[in-house]
């Protein structure tokens, strides 16, 4: 918890440091994009990672948030700061509404649940197109939307808002993970009816998980409407958001609150660097292969490996970081970070058996006592 506070403070100070250290302002912009994805992935993980209900609904909750703010500010003259809470609230209502129907039906589990959530997004898109009061196809401009002064100029404001929401989302995910709620959800994921038999209020817990997911996805969507600038149905309700959060969480490791955080940082940094190198097509192919390889080879996601080989992780990461920084290989801190990160991931991807041989002994490598159960999948639980 103290660690959490320290990180929070550090992040809030970062923009000032960036300015003081004459680092490119893009650093700030880069960071708030990371925050966006961390929040999205973390909130998704509370539902899908913890309770095992695979959801494509992220796009829907996100979209509701975006449109809530866009419509209220753009069409009803609300101030941004007044509209923002509605983004979270409306998404929450929609989420609970879905849960109320879906979670009552025992058979709506597994892929059927997943596709229901997918369908929801399509329906919302169709609605937004059809109803002029929402969009009606003309799109909504957010570029002119005034932001309250106390938040600072645009990028600073975006940074502060995304950071706050991201911290709250991760905190929610962490608190869930380290409480009865979390363990109740894990039990539901493992065997829902047994969980019920042990006195876990299955329905209520699933509703809470879905609520947390929808609320933060929507709230962040509300902030993001400013970033999108010109809100249209096709941009807001495309399958990109749900697919990225899935990719990020799977890569980082479902089930632990840290998994999506790690995954989001890795994936976003990678695609950002590849895009900035003008290698989008490569980016696509790499992301595709990453998906395939990780789903097949790295069972519990990178974060699991990071815990098992925490020492290696630290040494590799900071080692590379220092080298690239000292010899100024890239001229950009973000790129140094990206390289260090990728190298670490590469090292962590070395399969257990081979790893054991490298380290001069057979068997899977563990640099600490072999954790099992939730531990294994997720590292130190509560």
């Amino acid at each position, binding site marked *: 918890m103290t660690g959490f506070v320290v990180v929070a403070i550090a992040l809030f100070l970062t923009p000032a440091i960036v300015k003081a250290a004459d680092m490119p302002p893009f650093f700030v912009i880069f960071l708030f994009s990371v925050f966006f994805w961390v929040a999205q992935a973390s909130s998704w993980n509370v539902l899908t990672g913890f309770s095992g209900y*695979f959801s494509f609904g992220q796009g829907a909750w996100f979209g509701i948030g975006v449109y809530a703010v866009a419509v209220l500010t753009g069409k009803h003259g609300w101030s941004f700061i007044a509209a923002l809470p509605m983004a979270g609230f409306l998404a929450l209502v929609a989420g609970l509404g879905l849960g109320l129907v879906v979670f009552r039906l025992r058979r709506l589990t597994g892929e059927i649940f997943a596709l229901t959530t997918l*369908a*929801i997004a*399509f329906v919302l*898109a169709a609605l937004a197109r059809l109803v002029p009061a929402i969009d009606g196809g003309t799109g909504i401009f957010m570029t002119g939307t005034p932001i309250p002064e106390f938040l600072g100029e645009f990028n600073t404001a975006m940074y502060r808002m995304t950071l706050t929401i991201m911290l709250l989302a991760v905190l929610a995910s962490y608190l869930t993970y380290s409480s009865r709620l979390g363990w109740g959800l894990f039990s539901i994921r493992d065997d829902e009816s047994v969980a019920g038999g042990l006195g876990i209020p299955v329905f209520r817990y699933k509703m809470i998980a879905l609520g947390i997911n929808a609320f933060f996805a929507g709230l962040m969507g509300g902030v993001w409407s400013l970033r999108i600038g010109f809100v249209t149905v096709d941009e807001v309700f495309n399958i990109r958001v749900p697919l990225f959060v899935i990719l990020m969480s799977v890569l980082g490791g479902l089930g632990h609150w840290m998994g999506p955080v790690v995954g989001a940082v890795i994936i976003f940094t990678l695609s950002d660097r590849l895009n900035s190198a003008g290698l989008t097509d490569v980016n*696509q*192919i790499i992301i*595709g292969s*990453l998906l395939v390889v990780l789903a097949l080879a790295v069972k519990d996601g990178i974060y699991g490996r990071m815990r098992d080989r925490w020492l290696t992780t630290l040494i590799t990461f900071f080692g590379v970081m220092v080298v690239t920084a000292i010899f100024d290989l890239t001229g950009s801190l973000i790129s140094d970070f990206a390289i260090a990160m990728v190298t670490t991931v590469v090292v962590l991807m070395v399969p257990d058996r081979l790893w054991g041989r490298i380290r001069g002994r057979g068997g899977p490598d563990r640099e600490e006592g072999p954790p099992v159960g939730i531990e294994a999948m997720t590292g130190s639980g509560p």
Partner: protein
Amino acid sequence: MGLLAQGIATGILIGGLYALMSLGISLSWGALKIINLAHFSFILLSAYLVYQITISFGVDPLLTTGVVLPLFFVFGALMQMFFHRFKVDEFKSLIVTFGVFIILQSMMQSIWSADFRTIAPDLNIYRSSSIRIAGVALPIPSLMAFLAAVLIAVAMSVLLSRTYFGKAVRAVAQDAEMARAFGVDTKRVAVLLSGLSAVFSALAGVFIAVGQQIFPGLAVSWFGIVFPVVILGGLGHTVGTLTAGVIVGVAYGVAAVMWAPLAAPLVTFLILIAALLFRPHGLLTSRSVA
């Protein structure tokens, strides 16, 4: 009235194409427990291949099936071997095949560019020809797709309900372990079925190449049609899939004509959600493959 009749007629026909696009996904999902998103790029890739072969050799687009379909049978079979090798389950398959989908998409774009491709009319006599029945015009491309879909749906349901292969598939669909225990060569069955599924998707691609302009963005736009059809029809249920395709096609057509084209997707998905809530195992309910 004539308008409505026309709307329904074209709806039924386009429904055939939808069914054809959905069959492969439905079968591999229902019988092999593989949610194969790669099928979307299979459809598009086959359309591109048809286009390429047609314009390079100036042949009739329908003749290309001789090359394209076997090719995709191999693709499908190889893919299943791969899944088998790595014991890919339902959940993993969603992620893995999505990865494959992304890769194929960007490859197609880098080969054929993002621009629109059309088989010029002189090579494609089918595109805008049609036949009239009782004042209702039936476009040839969708008519062909529809007939193909009916043929395949019927053939498959016969194959699945009457032959040993069919029994084996059903056994695998119900409980692969058990099937193995009873001496069914589950891997061979799965590989064959996966190959067939790919062929159906490829065939859909052929008719798409014949019927419309193709571009990389197309594949994603199919998600919204195919998934409703697959779920509505019932996983692995060929006749059900055909029925669902027609229902979606007609619903789409009628909603577009009577209300607004914008409303069509809405109607489609409301049908889907209703189905998910009340008939999660498909219209002609049958949990197993048939």
